[in-house]
């Protein structure tokens, strides 16, 4: 199924690890150079910046090429030919991605990724245009409308497995969100179906993962498992669910218990409290960075959404309490781990083991420092004498607030 052979991907992984270890002085330069000879791969890779730029220009080229030929297929009485043209473009993009990966041996190179992404996009637009264009809009679910998101989800999953592009998986999850809307108008059933779809995927992923330890496949499935846990949580949390976002934005408020059957509403409330410890326990047991991170995120989301769930008013000091809780937990864990023999307890440590962690932290510090003032200065700055603060909107160090 995978376009790259397992030895090629393992070799690339070994090469990356060697570079990390040499950077951390765990290997001498002589050792590094010698071991590099053992990890020569026929696959072509590049660095993240060139990868992004190559991705961007491939997208521009494909989109412009499609737009160039669309008028030739447009007829005044039917949009279906345009839809069929988009499907042909999708097929061409997919073929291009296959050739780029199998013949040119491009791996995370931007070009083959953009072609695969375009294939998914054009498939979706093409199917929608070819099958459903020109039909009057109706709030009633169309029983065949599900074909479009279903095809998008299946094709995205294929791209994820075939090319190993992690971001194709969340795209498939997003397509899956649109499926239940085609089958039922019941909001609670929609939430339940999405959660069930994700849970089915999660069971399959956990079963598959259990056969792989410390290899590249485990790395891939780690992220996917984390995304599925997050998806299940978001589908069940009625206060922040993506299924409700549009309605929430329109109404400008939170979801009331009356919008759902009482038993369903309170079951989801129980589940959003049950899920975080389950996810965290799973992450800790597997020593899985992504699953632990999702466990922490859903725990915070549960704290944030608990009051709206219960219909209690929010207080201005709630974020302060949350901040104190997060800081307290971090300090407690750090100190608890540090008191273990050699700073290790139960196979966990708070100390930095890799130079990459420091690089991540340095880069994050610089970026987060730049965006933080904007986060805490919500309102625009005015220049009247009766000044109201908010100058951080112009990039200031947050001499803001809005008093």
């Amino acid at each position, binding site marked *: 199924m995978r376009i790259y052979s397992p030895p090629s991907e393992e070799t690339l992984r070994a090469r990356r690890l060697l570079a990390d270890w040499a950077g951390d002085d765990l290997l001498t330069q002589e050792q590094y150079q010698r071991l590099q000879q053992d990890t020569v791969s026929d696959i072509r890779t590049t660095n993240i910046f060139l990868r992004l730029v190559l991705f961007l220009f491939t997208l521009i080229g494909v989109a412009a090429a499609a737009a160039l030929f669309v008028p030739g297929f447009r007829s005044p009485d039917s949009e279906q030919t345009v839809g069929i043209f988009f499907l042909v473009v999708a097929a061409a993009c997919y073929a291009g991605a296959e050739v780029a990966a199998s013949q040119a041996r491009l791996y995370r190179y931007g070009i083959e990724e953009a072609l695969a992404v375009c294939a998914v996009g054009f498939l979706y637009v093409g199917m929608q245009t070819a099958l459903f264009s020109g039909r009057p809009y109706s709030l009633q679910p169309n029983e065949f409308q599900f074909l479009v998101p279903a095809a998008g989800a299946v094709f995205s999953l294929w791209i994820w497995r075939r090319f190993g592009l992690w971001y194709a998986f969340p795209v498939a999850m997003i397509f899956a969100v649109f499926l239940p809307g085609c089958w039922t108008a019941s909001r609670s059933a929609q939430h339940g179906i999405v959660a069930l779809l994700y849970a089915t995927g999660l069971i399959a992923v956990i079963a598959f993962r259990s056969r792989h330890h410390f290899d590249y496949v485990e790395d891939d499935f780690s992220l996917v498992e984390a995304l599925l846990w997050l998806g299940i949580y978001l589908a069940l949390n009625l206060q922040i669910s993506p299924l409700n976002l549009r309605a929430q934005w329109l109404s400008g408020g939170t979801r009331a218990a009356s919008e759902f059957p009482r038993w369903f509403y309170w079951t989801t409330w129980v589940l959003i409290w049950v899920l975080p410890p389950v996810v965290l326990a799973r992450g800790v047991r597997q020593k899985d960075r992504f699953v632990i991170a999702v466990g922490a995120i859903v725990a915070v989301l549960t704290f944030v959404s608990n009051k709206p769930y219960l219909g209690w008013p929010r207080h201005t000091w709630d974020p302060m309490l949350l901040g104190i809780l997060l800081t307290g937990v971090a300090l407690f864990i750090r100190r608890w*781990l540090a008191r273990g023999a050699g700073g290790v307890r139960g196979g966990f440590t708070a100390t930095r083991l890799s130079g990459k962690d420091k690089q991540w932290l340095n880069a994050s510090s610089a970026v987060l420092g730049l965006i933080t*003032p904007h*986060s805490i200065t919500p309102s625009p700055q005015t220049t009247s004498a009766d*000044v109201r603060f908010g100058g951080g909107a*112009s990039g200031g*160090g947050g001499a803001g*607030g809005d008093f």
Partner: protein
Amino acid sequence: MTILARLEQWREQGAISPEQHSHLASLCRREPFSLFLELNFLLYAGVLAFVAGLGWTVVTWSQQLGDVLVLAVLSAILAACFWYCFSRAPVWSLAETPAPGAVFDYVLYLGSLVWCIELAYLENRFHLLSGQWDFYLLATAVFFFFLAYRFDNRFVLSLALSSLAGWFGLTISRWPSHQDAAYRQYALLYCLLVGLGGMLLKQRGVKVHFFGTYLNIVANVLFWALLSGVFEQQGYGTWFLALLLACGASLAWGLKRRQFAFVAYAAVYGYVGVSWIIIRGVTNDTALFAYFVVTAVGMLAVLVRIARHVGRPA
């Protein structure tokens, strides 16, 4: 062959010592597993949530709480943070200095953000500078630069740079007829000031590791400023020339230093600028799309060549 099998093979071949094998294999097996990053992000989120709540509370309840209580609480937090930092900071050094403790950086960050809230409150309630509060931004920028260099902190350096940018922007917004041209000139002045300052400090060997932050910010502000000039209806020739020069310099720097972010800046900003000049008068859709097809393929060809020769993962 998994990495563990490879390590075993390398040990048998004598390429690595048994001690190295043991250490590297344990790292691969995540024994122990480091929670360093997770705990740091938890601390960051905690500080941010606390400051957001503090600001929100002060905004909402300042009338009921009264100036004395608000200022006393803010000052107490501020004093505690800076007392902690100054009392625990190691002796200042030109070189990179590790933080003395795991929470040190976050206490400094908390202090810096509380400083912003307190200044804003003071000005709003007492109008100490009679509404000329852009000077607070300048003072804050200077103070944050001092803190960033004293405690070797990138968080606060970024706050200082954004405060300085805010001061430039805010000063212009007070002018009666501020226009894009004025903003552009001040953006360039900001680039010049920050770029020269960063370079000077680097040459003097003062916190050389900060130079990357300066350079990235200056490059982005400079390219945006030049692009805004290229987008002008008239008199864009000089800006276009300057954009080409900046792209050339960025490309050369990126290739020479193997800092590929600068290659990416040159490619993207340069493409946008050149494309705008070429297609600004074009009204034919076919010509427009054909242009994008041809140029995108051309850019891909050039970038693939660069990637093949120098763009391997670092």
